[in-house]
C-alpha cells in the first residue's frame, strides 16, 4: 500500500466524514483532528525513503488517470528532498489549524473543518505532484477552500478580500495553465520528468524566446502566489480579513506554494528563461525585501504588519532560488519551512490576542506583558525567530540565502541584508507598543494563554529551536535534491561571483 496514497486519501476521507457528521456536535472536530493527526503520523513515514534517496522521487504514486486517444495524463506524485519537509509542514500545521479553530471559529464549525480537510488534500497534492496537469488541478483545489474560508468566516470586508484573493490567483494561474497546455501540445506529455526527458533527449528543443515566454507563464502564477513585489496587493487585505486559522495556514503553508513552484518547475523546466529573467526577478525580490520591511515599519495593525513582514521574508526565498547557487537554493527551501513556522506562530498568537481584544489594532494593546507573561514570551520567541536570530530557524535560511547571493553577486547580498536590520526595527517597535510600556486605560482584560492555547504553540517553538540549532536532521535531503536540480539546469555555480550567461547553442537544448 503506497504511503503517499494513504496520505492523500486521509484528508479526503476526513472531508466526507466531516460532511456526513451531524452539524451541532463535537463530532466534526473530532473527525477532523483525528484524520489530520493520522495524516501527520503517516507523513512521518515519508522521511525514511527520502533520506535513503533524496535526489529522486520516492514513494511514488503513478496511476493512469486520463487515458484516452487525445490525452494521456497520469496521476503522478512523488516525494523528494525538496518537497518532503513542505508536506510535513502541512501535515503538522493542519492539525494545529483544526485545533485552534475550535476556539477561533464561532459558527458553522462543520463546514470549516470540512474545508480544512479539503485544503490539506489540495496542499499535499500540490507539494507532491510530479505531473504538471495534476499540479495545476491541486493548485486550484487548494485555492477554493481557502477562498471559501476567507469569504465565509472572515472579517468585515471578507467578501472583498476573498474575491480579490481568488481573482488575483486566477489571473496568474490561467497563464500557467496556458504554459502547461503549450508544453503538453508541444512535448505530448505533461509529466515533469517526461518533459525533462524529452528536452534532455534533444529530440525537441525550445527556442530561448519560447523558454522565456513559458517561464513567464509559470512565473506569473507563482509570483502572484508568493507574492513578489508589485503583485502583492491581495495579500494584506486577505491576511487581515481572514479568520485566524485561515490566516495562519495562508501565511504558513499556502504562501509556500508559489515559492515551491518556482523552484520545482520554473527553474528546471526553463533554465534559459530563468536565466534571462533572473536579474529582474532578483531585483524585484530585493525591492520586496526592503519595501515590505519599510511598509511594515509603519503599520498600525498587528496582522497587517506581519503580513508585510512576510512579504519581506518571502523575498528572501525568491532571491535564494534565483541565485542558482547551492547555498541560495538550500537556504530558500529551508526558509520556506522556517518562515512557515515563525510567521505561522506569529499569526496564531495574533489570533489569540484578537480573540481576547476583539481587534488587532496596535493602539488597542500595550503593556500586556505583565498581564500575560506566557503570551508575551511566546510571542517574543516567534518574533525573534522571524527576526532571524541565530539558534532559531529563520537564521539558517536567511544566512544561506545571503551566502548564495553573496557568492553569486555580492551587491545583492548587501541590499538584501538591509532587510535584516529593518526586521529588527519593525518587530521590536511593534512588540514594544503591544506588550511593553504602561497598559492603556481603561485596563484591558488579557488573560494569559490557556492550556489548550499552549498546545499548538509549544510544538511550533520546539521546531523553531530544533531547525535553528541542529539543521543536520533536515538539511541533507534538501541539499542533495537541490544539487540534483541545479545539475539538471546545469547552473550550479558554487563559489562563482558572476552569473555565467547561458551559452546559446546548448541553451537551445534546454537540458
Amino acid at each position, binding site marked *: 500500500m503506497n504511503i503517499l496514497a494513504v496520505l492523500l486519501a486521509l484528508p479526503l476521507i476526513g472531508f466526507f466524514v466531516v460532511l456526513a457528521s451531524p452539524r451541532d456536535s463535537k463530532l466534526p472536530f473530532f473527525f477532523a483532528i483525528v484524520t489530520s493527526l493520522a495524516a501527520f503520523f503517516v507523513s512521518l513515514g515519508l522521511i525514511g525513503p527520502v533520506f535513503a534517496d533524496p535526489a529522486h522521487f520516492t514513494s511514488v504514486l503513478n496511476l493512469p488517470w486520463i487515458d484516452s486517444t487525445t490525452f494521456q495524463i497520469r496521476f503522478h506524485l512523488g516525494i523528494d528532498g525538496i518537497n518532503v519537509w513542505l508536506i510535513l509542514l502541512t501535515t503538522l500545521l493542519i492539525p494545529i489549524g483544526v485545533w485552534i479553530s475550535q476556539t477561533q471559529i464561532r459558527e458553522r464549525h462543520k463546514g470549516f473543518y470540512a474545508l480544512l480537510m479539503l485544503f490539506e488534500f489540495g496542499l499535499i497534492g500540490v507539494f507532491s505532484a510530479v505531473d504538471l496537469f495534476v499540479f495545476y488541478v491541486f493548485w486550484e483545489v487548494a485555492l477554493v477552500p481557502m477562498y471559501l474560508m476567507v469569504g465565509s468566516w472572515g472579517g468585515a470586508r471578507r467578501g472583498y478580500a476573498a474575491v480579490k484573493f481568488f481573482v*488575483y490567483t486566477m489571473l496568474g494561474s490561467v497563464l500557467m495553465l496556458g504554459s502547461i497546455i503549450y508544453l503538453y501540445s508541444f512535448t505530448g506529455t505533461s509529466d515533469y520528468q517526461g518533459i525533462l526527458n524529452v528536452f534532455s533527449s534533444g529530440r525537441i528543443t525550445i527556442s530561448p524566446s519560447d523558454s522565456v515566454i513559458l517561464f513567464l507563464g509559470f512565473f506569473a502564477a507563482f509570483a502572484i502566489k508568493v507574492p513578489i513585489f*508589485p503583485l*502583492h*496587493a491581495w495579500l494584506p487585505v486577505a491576511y487581515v480579513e481572514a479568520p485566524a486559522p485561515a490566516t495562519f495556514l495562508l501565511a504558513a503553508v499556502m504562501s509556500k506554494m508559489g515559492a515551491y513552484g518556482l523552484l520545482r518547475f520554473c527553474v528546471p523546466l526553463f533554465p534559459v528563461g530563468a536565466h534571462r529573467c533572473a536579474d529582474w526577478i532578483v531585483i524585484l525580490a530585493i525591492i520586496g525585501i526592503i*519595501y515590505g520591511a*519599510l*511598509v511594515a*515599519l*509603519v*503599520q498600525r495593525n498587528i496582522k497587517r504588519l506581519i503580513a508585510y513582514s512576510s512579504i519581506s521574508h518571502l523575498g528572501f526565498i525568491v532571491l535564494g532560488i534565483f541565485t542558482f*547557487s*547551492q*547555498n541560495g537554493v*538550500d*537556504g530558500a527551501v529551508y526558509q520556506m519551512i522556517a518562515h512557515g513556522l515563525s510567521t505561522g506562530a506569529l499569526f496564531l498568537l495574533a489570533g489569540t490576542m484578537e480573540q481576547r481584544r476583539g481587534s488587532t489594532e496596535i493602539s488597542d494593546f500595550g*503593556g500586556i*506583558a*505583565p498581564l500575560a*507573561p506566557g503570551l508575551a514570551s511566546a510571542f517574543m520567541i516567534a518574533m*525573534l525567530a522571524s527576526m532571524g*536570530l*541565530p*539558534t532559531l530557524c529563520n537564521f*539558517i535560511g536567511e*544566512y*544561506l540565502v*545571503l*551566502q548564495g547571493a*553573496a*557568492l553569486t553577486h*555580492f551587491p545583492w*547580498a*548587501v541590499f538584501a*541584508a*538591509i532587510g*535584516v*536590520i529593518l526586521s*529588527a*526595527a519593525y518587530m*521590536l*517597535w511593534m512588540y*514594544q507598543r503591544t*506588550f*511593553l*510600556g*504602561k497598559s492603556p486605560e481603561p485596563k484591558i482584560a488579557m488573560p494569559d494563554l490557556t492550556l489548550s492555547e499552549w498546545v499548538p504553540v509549544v510544538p511550533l517553538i520546539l521546531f523553531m529551536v530544533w531547525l535553528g*540549532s*541542529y*539543521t*543536520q536532521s533536515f*538539511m*541533507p535531503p534538501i*541539499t542533495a535534491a537541490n*544539487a540534483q536540480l541545479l545539475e539538471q539546469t546545469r547552473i*550550479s555555480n*558554487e*563559489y562563482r*561571483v558572476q552569473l555565467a550567461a547561458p551559452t546559446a547553442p546548448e541553451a537551445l537544448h534546454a537540458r
Partner: protein
Amino acid sequence: MNLWLIPLFPLIGFLLNGLFGKRLPKPVINLIGIGSVALSFAYVLFVLSKLYPLQAPFSEHYFTWIKSGALEIGFDLTIDRLTSIMLLVVTGVGLLIHIYSIGYMAHENGYYRFFSYMNLFMFFMLVLVLASNLLVLFVGWEGVGLCSYLLIGFYYLENFANDAAKKAFVVNRIGDFGFMLGILLTIYAFKSLDFGHIAAAMSAMPVETGFGILTLITLLLFVGAAGKSAQFPLYVWLPDAMAGPTPVSALIHAATMVTAGVYMIARLSFLYDHAPIAMNVVAVIGVFTAAFAASIGILQNDIKKVYAYSTVSQLGYMFLGLGVGAYSAGIFHLMTHAFFKALLFLGAGSVIHGLSGEQDLRHMGGLAKKMPITCWTLLIASLSISGFPGFSGYFSKDAILSAAYVHTPWMFWVGAVTAGMTAFYIFRAYFLTFFGKYRGHEHPHESPLVMTLPLIVLAALAFGGGYISVPNWLSPMMPFAEHQDTTAMAISVGFGIAGILLALFLYVMRPALAESLRESAGPLYTLIYNKYYVDEIYNAVIVAPLKYISRVILWHGVDEGVVDGGMNGLGRLVAGIGGLLRQLQSGSVRNYATWIMAGSLLVIFILGLAGGMR
C-alpha cells in the same frame, strides 16, 4: 575536555529560572542563578589548569551545524590563550556581579526574570568567546545583543527603558549588518569560517597594500565591532543603555559584552595584520571615539552616564591599541578595564542603592562618611582608570599609548590628552559624590555585605590586575614588541595627574569657579552638554525621514496608490468597458437588428470582399 560544559551551566540556569522561577523562592533562584555561573567559573579554572600552558589552541568539534554543498560549518569550540583571559574575565567578573545583584535587585520584582536573563547572557557570552568559527561567534554575538536588549528593557513598564533597549538592538543590528556581510565575504575568500583555516590561509597570503578583498572584509567586520563595542558613529546606544539595572551596566555594558568587538578583532588579528588600511581606520576611529566620548563625559550629571561615556572612551583606547597593532595591549586594557569599570559601576550602583535610586551627581556629595567602603573602593577604581602609576589602568593604558607613540605620534598625543580628560571627569564624579556636603534628601546608608564584598574583591583586582602581564601571556599568539618608552609614559601620566588635580581644584577647593567657567564657556558648554546633538541629528537625518518615506510615500503612495490602486483601477477599467458593452443591450429590437445587420455586413465584407478578386 568537554568545553561545552562551560556555557552549558548558565544555559541550564536560564532554563530553570526562566521556566519555573516564577514559582521558586528567592534563595533557590539565587542558588540556581549564581551557582550556575560559579560552576562554569570553576570549570574554566579546571580546564585551564588541565590545559596549562596552552601553547597551541585546543579545539573540540561537536556536530556539523550547517552543511550546504561545499559550505560546511561545524559547531566547534576552541580554547587558547586569548580565550583563557576572556573566559576568566567573563566568568570571574560575571560571578562577582551576580553575587552583587542579590543585594541590588533584592527589592525588584521580576527577580527570577533578571537572573534567568543574566544566565542566558553568560551562556551566549561564553559561546561567543569559545567559538572557533565566525558563525558560531555570530551566534553568541547576536545572543548577547538579545540579552542586553532584554536587560536594558528590564523595567519594561518604563518607556524610556523600552526605547533604550530597542535603540540598542537596532543599532547593534546595523553593526551586525556589516558583520554578516563580512562573514559572507570571508566564505567567498576562504571557503571557510574556521579561524584555524583562515589563519593558515593568511600565512600564505601577502599583506594587502591596496584596498582589496581583505580590507573590505576587515572593514565590514569592524563595522560589526563598532556597533557592539559602541564606537563612533554607532556608540549612541550605550549611554542610553544605562536605563537597565546597574549590575547589567556593569556586566554587559562595561566589562564583557561591549568588549566583544575588541575580542573579535584581536581574534582575527592575523586577518587585520594583512589589511593595513583597515588597521588605520580602526586606530583612527578608536582614538577619535576615545577623545570624543571623554569630552562628553566631562559635563554629564548622571553618574552612570559619566561612566558610560568613559566606557565608550576606554573602548576607544582598546581599538587604538588594536589599530596600532598592539593587540595584546588592547586585550590587556580590556581586562583591566573590566575590573575597574565593573568596580566603578558597582560602586555607583551601591551609591544609587544607598540613595534609593538617586543618580544625579548634583544631588549627592559628602557620602564619604556615609558609605566608606564604597568610597575607598571607588577611589581605587578611579585612580586605576586615570592611569595613576602602580594601578592596573596605568600598565594597560600606557602599553597602548606607547605603542601608539611608536606607530603614529599624533594618535599618542590625542590619547594622552584624553587620558587627562578621563582623569578629570572621573574624579569630578568622584568628588561630587563623596566630597563637599550632601545635597540630596534621601538618607544614605552603606550597602549590605553581599554588595560590598564584590566591591572589595574587584578593588583588589583593579589595583593588582596590572601586574598580570597579559602581553607576555599572549605573545606566542600576537607578538608584542615590549618597548617601554619612558617619555611617552611620563607624558600620559602627567596628563592624568593634571586631570586629577584640576578636578580636585574645581570641585573640592573652589566649587564656585566651576560655575563661572561654565558661564564663560557658553555655546561650547551647551554643545558638549547636549552631547554634540548626535542623537538629534540621527533622528532628524535618518529615523524621521525613513518613517516619513515609509508611511507617506511607500505605504500610502506606492502600496495603496500604485500597487493596489493600480490593480483596482485596472479592474474598474475592465468593468467600465463592460458597462459600455452593456449599452449595446438597449433593449430595442430595432437596435439589435441594426447590430445584426452591421455584423452581417462585416462578415460579408471579410468573407466576400476582402482579398479582392481571387
